[in-house]
């Protein structure tokens, strides 16, 4: 891989040991990819937190060791300087305010706080959400980024026209300290054109519709780039957030085009560029029903936990939940958690949404989610969620049964304790 003189100097230690370790990892990683060179980035979204039991042993030796080993893949513990690139923290494992409700160990909470103090001191913005684009990190068109979090990556590429691959805990650590990432994959224009075609022949309007379409898209195209045309309406931030998270869960979709709506294609020809669709898929009523059935992993209709907010909810989504729960009471056997970034929670509190959700017996959480934290209310056996991503992952992670459906179906289950579903 070609390195500039500046990059060679970084590798050779001119920027200190941490920068050298970071550059060493980027070189190993770039060579593994077969990348020709690195590209400059000033927009990094990574996971610098220490909030899982497996990190505890390393954290006992200090946060510099956590960063060195887990964010730089360095066997030597190096002193960590200020971040060179604009850097934010994605979702963590512990809600800093509701940790007791999560059942988190106070020692782990302290470890998380120590870790946040350590990286905050070094310039990491503690957004603590899987949706940094909702709380201040909105890449500009064509901006080279180094982001983790599959649902954020597909949003950055598909919805915003920023450029990032799916990075990891180690490569984002290295990018933050060097302002570099391998110039490969979605950083190159020629790799961003569509190569699969999906024709939508059933109306896609509601959040449920967009989630199911996303799940279908991932199932059909795997890691390819779909171009979607047909009966889609109501395209907005929240729908694309939901769609992308689902597509990135069932497949490995990191980029897509909805001509006329997403920034890199006004018409299908622009979306495909020099490519031709190698496969053609039809999304119809039968495909929609099949996706709905695929997402169910429960048999028992007695529900004990409603999980909302994956990816983290927007302010409108929190407001909608408050509206649906207004003046009502959850079934006594059911817990309901709403997840939203802490910055949005502040607005939700001010708007009265948090109070209305809590008056119904629900909780508003931030910083984490049950799939990431692996923490659910005690004794939960059957969950319901409006998130295709959470329905895909949480049952396996938490060994619970999972129902998937619309927000309205989830709220109804919360109020009655029984799952009825949407079909």
């Amino acid at each position, binding site marked *: 891989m070609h390195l500039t003189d500046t990059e060679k100097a970084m590798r050779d230690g001119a920027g200190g040991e941490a920068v050298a370790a970071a550059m060493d*990892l980027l070189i*190993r*990683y770039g060579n*593994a*990819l*077969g990348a020709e060179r690195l590209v400059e980035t000033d927009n990094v979204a990574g*996971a610098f937190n220490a909030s899982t039991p*497996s990190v505890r042993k390393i954290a006992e030796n200090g946060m510099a060791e956590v960063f060195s*080993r*887990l964010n730089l*893949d360095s066997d030597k513990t190096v002193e960590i300087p200020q971040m060179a690139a604009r850097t934010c923290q994605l979702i963590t494992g512990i809600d800093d305010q509701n940790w007791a409700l999560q059942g988190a160990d106070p020692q782990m909470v302290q470890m998380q706080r120590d870790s946040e103090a350590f990286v905050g001191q070094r310039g990491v913005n503690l957004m603590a959400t899987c949706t940094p684009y909702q709380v201040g990190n909105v890449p500009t068109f064509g901006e080279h980024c180094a*982001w*983790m*979090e*599959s649902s954020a*990556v597909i949003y950055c590429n598909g919805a915003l026209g920023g450029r990032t*691959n*799916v*990075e*990891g*805990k*180690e*490569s984002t650590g290295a990018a933050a300290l060097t302002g570099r990432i*391998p110039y*490969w*994959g979605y950083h190159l224009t020629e790799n961003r054109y569509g190569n699969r075609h999906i024709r939508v022949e059933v109306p896609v309007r509601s959040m449920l519709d967009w989630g199911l379409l996303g799940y279908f898209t991932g199932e059909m195209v*795997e*890691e390819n780039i779909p171009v979607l045309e047909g009966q889609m309406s109501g395209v907005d931030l929240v729908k694309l957030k939901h769609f992308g998270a689902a597509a*990135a*869960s069932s*497949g*490995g979709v990191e980029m897509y085009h909805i001509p006329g709506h997403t920034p890199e294609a006004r018409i299908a020809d622009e979306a495909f560029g020099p490519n031709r669709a190698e496969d053609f898929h039809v999304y119809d009523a039968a495909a929609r029903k099949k996706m709905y059935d695929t997402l169910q*992993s429960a048999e028992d209709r007695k529900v004990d936990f409603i999980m909302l907010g994956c990816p983290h909810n927007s302010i409108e989504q929190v407001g909608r939940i408050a509206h649906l729960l207004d003046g009502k009471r959850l079934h006594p056997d059911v817990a309901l958690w709403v997840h939203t970034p802490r910055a949005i929670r502040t607005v939700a509190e001010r708007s009265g949404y948090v109070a209305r959700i809590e008056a119904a017996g629900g909780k508003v959480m931030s910083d984490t989610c049950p*799939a990431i934290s692996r923490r659910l209310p005690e004794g939960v056996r059957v969950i319901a969620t409006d998130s295709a991503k959470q329905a*895909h*992952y949480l*049952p*396996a*992670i938490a060994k619970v049964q999972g129902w998937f459906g619309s927000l309205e179906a989830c709220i109804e289950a919360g109020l009655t304790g029984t799952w009825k579903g949407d079909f």
Partner: protein
Amino acid sequence: METLTTPLLIRGRGVVSGRVEGEALVTTQTISGWGGINERDGSIIERRHELVGQSFAGKILVFPGAKGSSGWSAFFHMTRINGVAPAAMLFTRMTTKMALGAVVTRVPAMTDFDADVFTEIRTGDHVVVDADAGTVEVTRR
């Protein structure tokens, strides 16, 4: 019973250097890291995966590549720290998740093969991976 035929030789590109031999675990399905594996025992936990419940610890893992969450590298990184990493990774689809995961797992890894590894290698076969020489030797078991 062990056969006495010459091992099959497959060539490919080394992704992470090193030489190792062991027993193959083969799947034609991509693997999720976060939510797909248990990093404490090296087992596959994705409920619809054909290898669900099986462990890749110490095996030559032959698979198309990575899918799912960006926690992929961190979870395979933890399998190394927990001593339950695969012995080697042979994969066919290069992605950033896959490349970074292989690099931080620090086991010999290869891709770009001159043969179809999913038909030439079967679970249980004895496999010698030499990522520096760019060779995979397969002995049917």
